[in-house]
């Protein structure tokens, strides 16, 4: 039997190749993702190992607040007094100790442009220059010396890129006013030009403290142990000396591990996101494999019956088909794994192109990647082949004598019932995830089940839908169109399984398109409803406007302009209000009400200027039963403070503003980061936009990373951000669509083989090659459109459901973009044309005489 299987595979190389391709692409994507993530992860592992190489003990504040952003688990932490340093140095066994500061410092190149973008790429760090060599990962290049006073050492990569030399003067943006510094040295990070793409500006400690707004403070203190003193011993000795409520002491190994884990967790989000797309591709692939094996089994029914007739058991036939699946799966997985390793670089290039600049060193292929890729690829293939294989094993030997009928009854009431049942289950799971608070896993699971339900329903609806979709073709293209439509309707199971693969891709494309358009409209509505300002100054288009920022000096400079009426900076950060982690806005209480449409209902925004005051949205007040004067226990990075409610306003998160607000002066007591992320500006009365713009731009010259936008530009920038993400998702979904197209091509090729004699007859009675190609093309287009239209319906539903679920987060508009959706349909149809190219050419090349006498 084994030999029969292998001979069968070799005899149908094309079928083998196309099936394998579907698995291969999915596996390649998956292993590519894993390789990329491992590579990035290793890069950071090495980075942190280098940074902390000389550290035996590490002291930091015990006060911290977890970052509110989904990914990074890095915590915002308070600072520690510099006076701890001599205390720690005097601990027996401590050879040397040094305090570290890390803060925002962005280099400006010679043309006046800021280098790097912390919102999108690697961070732009400022540090104090370490004088303890074992604790300083930076190494001066020859000719430079450590910075003193108004001097700075910059990283070698930035120096090379921007052409800076020792002795040059450089502008550096910090949370203070932009400053001019003299380059005293250029440093490498270990052997590398930069630390994973980040830029570095290193100052002497007093300068660094002054820039960071932290006189006599450090973020942390690292300690080197005397020879013979273990990390553990040293750490314990230091801990014994310090107040454990205020300070945390870790070993060098612990801090390294923590840094590495933080990055791993941050990457986890990104890893999962990419893997989801890989799994979608594999899921689509299962449909293709299932369909191919079903068709092949149907076509070989007679051969299998013959095998049964001459004594093969049902089990042997089953084993034969499954062996084929194993061979295809294994072959495809191995190739896919290889392709994935290559693809990981392409994947990184795609992410770079969409603005996610991630450092990655040498490619890392772990055993886990290899095992998972092979198991999943082979497993998926076998899983998809089980049902067709079981069918094959049940072929009665007598079937060898009969003319083999094509696949069984297209649909039955039971199928419809089961299909509806599964679909409904999927919808329920989806709703449980969206509205029942069961989380994103339920949403994904629900979507998956919906797809399976529709797939089960498929054969029942494929015939009428193909009839309907094919009507124009039959009407306009005469007999070729009629034949195309009839062939598409001929085997509804096959047609629907083929279309289902495309359906999944299109449903996701449709969903994301509708979601993005709705999000854009919602944001536009929020801007209109929430903002009164004429202009916004921000760091530009990046997702990370909230990561970077600019000196508060900018807002001060702007407010002094005679052309400006009201202006308020805005800082978004988060804190725990009565135990729940929430974003809040830091604003200027004097002007916030003029640039934001808060719709104050109780109290005054100006009252927020009083220390430890907080403003809350009406929804929060109602929810928590708070009123003016209520005390809100608030956890900041440096400890807990009681804030008093001074104002209640109507427009919160849902209107694009924040549910909590406080003055920047209150906020700045509790955070080390003192950057403004936005400045909202109203022009003074009688000032023309041109005049206002000119005046503001004059100020912004000194802040090259700040950008001025009017309301339209601001909306466009938000839309551009969404488009950027949308583009990335489209690219990621492209693979699923390509696999679906391979599926269509595969089905067509197999159907054509089955219909050889029929095609021969058509050619014999006068069908031209062109007509034959056209007919197959239309058949393909009908199948593709079937998948596209059903997919769009599902996508539409998903879009609607998700927007409904996010209503409270400000997604108030459901706006399916008709033009784009029509474009999806057109592209779907064209994809059908593309999928048909190869099968149609093959069919047209058939020798008429051979075909017409084909058995």
């Amino acid at each position: 039997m084994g030999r029969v299987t292998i001979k069968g595979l070799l005899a149908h190389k094309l079928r083998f190749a196309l099936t394998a391709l579907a698995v291969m692409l999915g596996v390649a994507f998956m292993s590519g993702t894993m390789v990329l993530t491992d590579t990035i992860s290793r890069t950071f592992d090495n980075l942190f190992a280098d940074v902390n190489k000389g550290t035996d003990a590490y002291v930091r504040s015990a006060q911290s607040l977890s970052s509110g952003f989904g990914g990074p688990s890095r915590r915002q932490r308070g600072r520690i007094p510099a006076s701890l340093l001599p205390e720690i140095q005097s601990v027996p066994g401590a050879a040397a100790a040094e305090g570290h500061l890390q803060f925002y410092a962005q280099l400006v190149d010679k043309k006046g442009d800021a280098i790097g973008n912390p919102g999108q790429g690697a961070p732009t760090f400022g540090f104090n220059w370490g004088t303890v060599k074992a604790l300083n990962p930076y190494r001066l290049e020859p000719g430079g010396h450590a910075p003193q006073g108004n001097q700075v050492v910059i990283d070698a990569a930035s120096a090379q890129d921007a052409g800076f030399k020792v002795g040059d003067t450089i502008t550096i943006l910090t949370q203070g006013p932009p400053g001019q510094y003299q380059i005293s040295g250029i440093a490498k990070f270990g052997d590398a030009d930069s630390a994973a793409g980040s830029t570095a500006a290193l100052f002497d400690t007093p300068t660094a403290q002054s820039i960071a707004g932290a006189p006599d403070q450090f973020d942390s203190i690292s300690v080197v142990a005397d020879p013979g003193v273990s990390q553990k011993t040293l750490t314990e000795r230091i801990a014994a000396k310090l107040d454990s409520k205020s300070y945390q002491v870790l070993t060098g190994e612990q801090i390294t591990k923590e840094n590495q884990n933080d990055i791993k967790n941050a990457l986890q989000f990104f890893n999962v996101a990419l893997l989801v797309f890989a799994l979608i591709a594999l899921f689509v692939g299962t449909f293709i494999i299932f369909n191919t094996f079903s068709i092949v089994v149907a076509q070989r029914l007679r051969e299998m019956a013959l095998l049964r007739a001459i004594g093969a058991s049902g089990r042997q036939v089953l084993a034969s088909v499954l062996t084929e699946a194993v061979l295809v799966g294994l072959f495809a997985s191995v190739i896919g794994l290889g392709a994935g390793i290559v693809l990981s670089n392409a994947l990184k290039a795609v992410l770079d192109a969409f603005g996610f600049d991630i450092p990655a060193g040498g490619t890392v292929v772990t055993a886990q990647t290899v095992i998972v890729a092979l198991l999943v690829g082979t497993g998926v293939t076998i899983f998809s082949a089980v049902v067709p294989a079981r069918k094959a094993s049940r072929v009665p030997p007598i079937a060898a004598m009969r003319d083999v009928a094509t696949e069984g009854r297209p649909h039955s009431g039971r199928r419809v019932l089961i299909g509806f049942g599964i679909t409904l289950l999927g919808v329920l799971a989806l709703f449980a995830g969206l509205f029942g608070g069961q989380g994103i896993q339920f949403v994904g699971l629900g979507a998956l089940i919906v797809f399976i339900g529709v797939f089960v329903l498929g054969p029942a609806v494929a015939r009428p839908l193909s009839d309907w979709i094919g009507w124009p073709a039959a009407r306009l293209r005469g007999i070729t169109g009629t034949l195309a439509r009839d062939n598409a309707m001929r085997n509804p199971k096959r047609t629907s399984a083929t279309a289902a693969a495309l359906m999944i891709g299109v449903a996701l494309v449709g969903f994301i398109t509708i979601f993005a358009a709705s999000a854009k409209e919602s944001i536009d509505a929020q801007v209109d409803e929430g903002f009164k300002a004429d202009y916004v100054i921000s760091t530009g288009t990046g997702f990370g406007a909230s990561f970077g920022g600019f000196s508060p000096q900018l807002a001060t400079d702007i407010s002094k302009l005679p052309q400006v009426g009201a202006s308020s900076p805005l800082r978004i950060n988060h804190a725990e209000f009565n135990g729940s982690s929430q974003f809040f806005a830091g604003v200027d209480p004097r002007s916030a009400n003029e640039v934001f449409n808060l719709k104050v209902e109780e109290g005054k925004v100006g009252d927020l200027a009083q220390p430890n005051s907080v403003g809350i949205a009406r929804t929060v007040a109602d929810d928590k039963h708070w009123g003016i004067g209520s005390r809100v226990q608030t956890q900041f990075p440096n400890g807990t403070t009681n804030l008093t409610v001074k104002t209640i306003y109507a427009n919160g998160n849902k209107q694009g503003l924040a549910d909590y607000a406080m003055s920047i002066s209150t906020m700045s007591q509790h955070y080390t980061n003192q950057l403004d992320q936005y400045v909202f500006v109203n022009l003074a009365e009688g000032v023309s936009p041109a005049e206002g713009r000119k005046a503001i731009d004059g100020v912004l010259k000194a802040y090259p990373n700040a950008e001025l936008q009017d309301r339209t530009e601001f909306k466009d920038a938000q839309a551009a951000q969404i488009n950027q993400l949308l583009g990335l998702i489209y690219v990621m979904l492209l693979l699923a669509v390509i696999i679906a197209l391979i599926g269509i091509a595969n089905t067509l090729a197999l159907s054509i083989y089955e219909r050889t004699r029929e095609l021969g007859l058509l050619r014999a009675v006068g069908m031209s090659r062109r007509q034959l190609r056209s007919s197959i093309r239309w058949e393909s287009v009908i199948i593709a459109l079937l998948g596209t239209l059903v997919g769009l319906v599902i996508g539409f539903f998903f879009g609607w459901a998700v927007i409904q679920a996010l209503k409270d987060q400000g997604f108030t508009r459901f706006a399916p973009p008709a033009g784009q959706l029509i474009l999806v349909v057109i592209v779907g149809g064209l994809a059908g044309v593309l999928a048909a190219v190869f099968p149609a050419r093959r069919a047209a090349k058939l020798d008429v005489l051979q075909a017409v006498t084909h058995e």
Partner: protein
Amino acid sequence: MTSAVTSEPAAGTVAARAEEVTKIYGIGDTAVRALNNITVDFAAGRYTAIMGPSGSGKSTLLHCLAGLDRVTAGRVLLGDVDVTACSEKELTIVRRDKIGFVFQSYNLIPTLNAIENITLPLALAGKKPDKQWLDRVITTVGLSDRLNHRPSELSGGQQQRVAVARALASRPQVIFADEPTGNLDSKASAEILQFMRQAVTDLGQTVVMVTHDPAAAGYSDRVVFLADGKIVDELQSPTAETVIDHAKTLGE
């Protein structure tokens, strides 16, 4: 060579003609000479049967005449069209407009119903069927009440009647039939042969039919006997009995 044409009583024109046609399959040692320098005419308005033992080249001759197979040497003329000089594109049009086919296995398109199958060549040509002619053809083959049936809903004999009607529908110059009764029982066979006879007698069509069945040949106006790729004999106005006798003499 026999010049049967001059003795044809009907229209007198030649519907199809093979001129010194040779067909060799394969090359070198394995080459098989299926047709060996054959020259033969098929008169318009006549029903000709081609007979011969297996491997005599009768099917090859039919395929070459119909432009389904390329000749190695010689010419094939359909009316005044030199089929051997036609490009693939031109051949398609010749097959569509000038030739009707009836194959042994019915060769209908399963997704099309009877009437769609019958008008298929016309539809491919983008032509409207001649209503009167079509009605006559359909009446002749007795399919009026089966027109909306799919092939799977028709018996073998009915399917072959559809195939005959399809061959007639475009009023082709020649109808080529390759063992048209090979898969049918005797009753259905007789019907089909009778229809083809009527097509010639009543509708003035030209039929060239390959068969190994003397009874089938008995319906024709003329039988051409092939052996080893050559025409070895022919018989005018045959009956089943005379064909059997003739075949016997050839065999001896």
